[in-house]
C-alpha cells in the first residue's frame, strides 16, 4: 500500500473502537492446518490476548483464499480485513492499543530485529520441513492440505502449493540445504532466543510485546505438533528457559482465561 492509502486506513481504523464480534479466520484445526500456519495463527491470538482484545476463532477450509494477502490468519474487525501479524500489530496500534509503547528506539530496533530472526529462521525452517522434506510431505502435508477438497482437487492444490514454496526456497538459497543444516539453523535461532531471554519472564523484562507473542506461537506449535520425527521439537527442548517461557504464556494468557489452545494439548517432553 502506498503511504497515502496506509494513512487513510489508519484513519478509518482509529475512528472506531474494537468491536465485540471481531473474528480470526484460520484453516480447519483438526484436519487441515499446517505447522507454519498454526504458528502464525497462534502468534496473533497470543498478541490479541496480551492486548486484552476479545477475538473469536473461526475455522474455514478456504481461509487462505479469503485472506487479502493469501496468508493466514486474518482478522475481520468491523468492516476491515487485515492479515498477518505485522499489519495486525499496526492496525491494533491505530486503534490505540500497543504493547511496545514503553520501549525506546534502540529496544524497538532490537525487537524488530528479533522478529525478523524468527521469521527468517523458524518460519522458513517450518516451511522447509513441511514442503521440501519428502518424508513429511508424503505422510502429513499432502494429506492435510487437500483434506477438505474432493479428488483430484486435493492433489492439484497440494502440488501447486508445494511448487510455489519450493520456488521460494530456491530463490532465498534454502533449496540446496539438507535437513540437518535446517535443524542446525533452528538450533542456532533457539540458542539466540534463549540467550536473549536469559532469566527474564519476557523478552523486554516485565511486559510482553509482539515479539513474545511471535516466539510463543512458533515454539508452542513446534513443541506440541507431532511430525514424522521429533528432531525439530528436540532442538527447542534443549533450552529450558524457552520451555518455561511457553508454559508461562500458555498459563497466563490462555488457560487462566478459559481458552483451550489444543484439545489434546500434550507437551511432547
Amino acid at each position, binding site marked *: *500500500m*502506498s*503511504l497515502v492509502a496506509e494513512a487513510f486506513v489508519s484513519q478509518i481504523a482509529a475512528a472506531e473502537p474494537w468491536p465485540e464480534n471481531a473474528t480470526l479466520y484460520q484453516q480447519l484445526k483438526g484436519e487441515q492446518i499446517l505447522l507454519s500456519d498454526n504458528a502464525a495463527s497462534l502468534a496473533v491470538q497470543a498478541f490479541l490476548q496480551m492486548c486484552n482484545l476479545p477475538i473469536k476463532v473461526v475455522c474455514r477450509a478456504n481461509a487462505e483464499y479469503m485472506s*487479502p*494477502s*493469501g*496468508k493466514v490468519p486474518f482478522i475481520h474487525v468491523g468492516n476491515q480485513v487485515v492479515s498477518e501479524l505485522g499489519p495486525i500489530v499496526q492496525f491494533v496500534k491505530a486503534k490505540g492499543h500497543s504493547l511496545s509503547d514503553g520501549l525506546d*528506539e*534502540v529496544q*524497538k*530496533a*532490537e525487537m*524488530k*530485529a*528479533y522478529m*525478523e*530472526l524468527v*521469521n*527468517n*529462521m523458524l518460519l522458513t525452517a517450518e516451511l522447509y520441513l513441511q514442503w521440501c522434506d519428502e518424508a513429511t510431505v508424503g505422510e502429513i502435508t499432502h494429506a492435510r492440505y487437500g483434506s477438505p477438497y474432493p479428488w483430484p482437487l486435493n492433489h492439484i492444490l497440494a502440488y501447486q502449493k508445494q511448487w510455489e514454496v519450493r*520456488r*521460494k526456497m530456491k*530463490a*532465498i*538459497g534454502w533449496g540446496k540445504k539438507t535437513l540437518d543444516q535446517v535443524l542446525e539453523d533452528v538450533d*542456532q*535461532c533457539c*540458542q*539466540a*532466543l534463549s*540467550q*536473549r531471554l*536469559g532469566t527474564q519472564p519476557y523478552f523486554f523484562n516485565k511486559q510482553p510485546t509482539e515479539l513474545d507473542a511471535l516466539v510463543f506461537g512458533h515454539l508452542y506449535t513446534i513443541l506440541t505438533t507431532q511430525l514424522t520425527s521429533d528432531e525439530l521439537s528436540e532442538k527447542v527442548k534443549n533450552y529450558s528457559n524457552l520451555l518455561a517461557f511457553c508454559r508461562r504464556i500458555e498459563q497466563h494468557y490462555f488457560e487462566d482465561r478459559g481458552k483451550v489452545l489444543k484439545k489434546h494439548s500434550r507437551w511432547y517432553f
Partner: protein
Amino acid sequence: RPGGRTRSPGRWAEAGRTAARCTAPGSIPSTSHSLACDPAEAWRESHSFSARLRVFSALKALWLWRESRAPLCTPGAFGEKVPESWAYAKFSGAPLKVNVIDNTWRGSRGDVPILTTEDNIVSQPAKILNFLRKQKYNADYELSARQGADTLAYIALLEEKLLPAVLHTFWVENDNYFTVTKPWFASRIPFPLSLILPGRMSKGALNRILLTRGEPPLYHLQEVEAQIYRDAKECLNLLSHRLGTSQFFFGDMPSTLDAYVFGFLAPLYKVRFPKVQLQEHLKQLSNLCRFCDDILNSYFRHSLGGISPAGQETVDANLQKLTQLVNKESNLIEKMDDNLRQSPQLPPRKLPTLKLTPAEEESNSLQRLSP
C-alpha cells in the same frame, strides 16, 4: 597435532607470498592483480606469539570478485556477501589474499565468495565466517552471549529488509543496472559470459524480490518497489538508532555484525549511481556514513582500488621483504608452536587502527618492516 596440519619451513615462504590461487582450479590463473592484505599490519600481528602462530599456521586464499575501477565489490544477485567476508577477515586478523578473478567459469554458478585452505573449500559467507571462527580468527571473542544473539537478529533484519532494496538498486533499477553494474561486471569477465551472466544475475535478483516480497495485495512492480524501499529506509533508521554514537556496534572492537553491516552499506555508500534514492537516505544518516568511512580508512587502506602499477610493485616489494623476515623467524615459531597450541583460546589482540596519510604510506610500511 591438532588439526593435522603440517608446518614446514618451506610453508612460511608460501604463506607470505602466496596470492595467486585465483580462478577455477584447472583453468589458467592470471595473477597480475593479486594483492596481499596489509603486509605491515600482518607483520605487526606476527610480533605477538599467539598471533604469530595463528597467522602463519595455515594457508588461506580467498576468491573474490574484484573490480579495479570501483573501490568495493557489489553484493551479488544471489545474496553473496562478498564485502562482509572480506571485512570480517580483516577484523579478526586472518591473513587472506584478495584475488582478482579474470576467469569466471567457476564463479558463474554463484559460488563466490569462496575460501580455500589447504584442506577444504568453504563457500557461502555464513560458513566462511564460521570457518574462520573455528580456526580461532574470532572477532566476536569479547562479545557476551546476548550480543552474539543480537548479532544473529540484526543479520536477519538486514537480509529481510535491506537486501531486497540493495539488490534492486544494483541489479533491477534500469538506469543503475545499464550504466553502472552491467558494464562493470561485463568488463571483468571473459567474452561469452559477459553477455550472459549480468543478465542472469539481474533476472535472479528480480525473481528473488518478487518471490519474497511481491505477494498480494501488492500486484504491481512499482508497489513492490515502493514497499521494499520503505522497508530499507526503516531498516537504515533502525541501524542508525542502534549504532548511536559509538564507533562499532558492540563497543570499540569490530565484530561480525559490523562486517555484515559494512558489507551492505559500503557499496551502497560509495558507488556512484544515477538513481540514488537509497544512497541519499543513507547519506542523511551521518553516523552510518562515519562508520563506513572509519572502517574503510582503518582496514582497507592498502586494498582500495585504483592502485597504479608503480604502487603495485612497491606493495610487492614490501611483501618480499616481509617474506624474508618471516622466514627467519619461522624456526623459532615452530618450536614454540606446540606449547602455545595447547593453551586455551586466547582473546584476540587489539588491532591498532592504521591511520596513514597517502604521502607517508610507503615509507611507514617500510620502516615497520625492520624488526
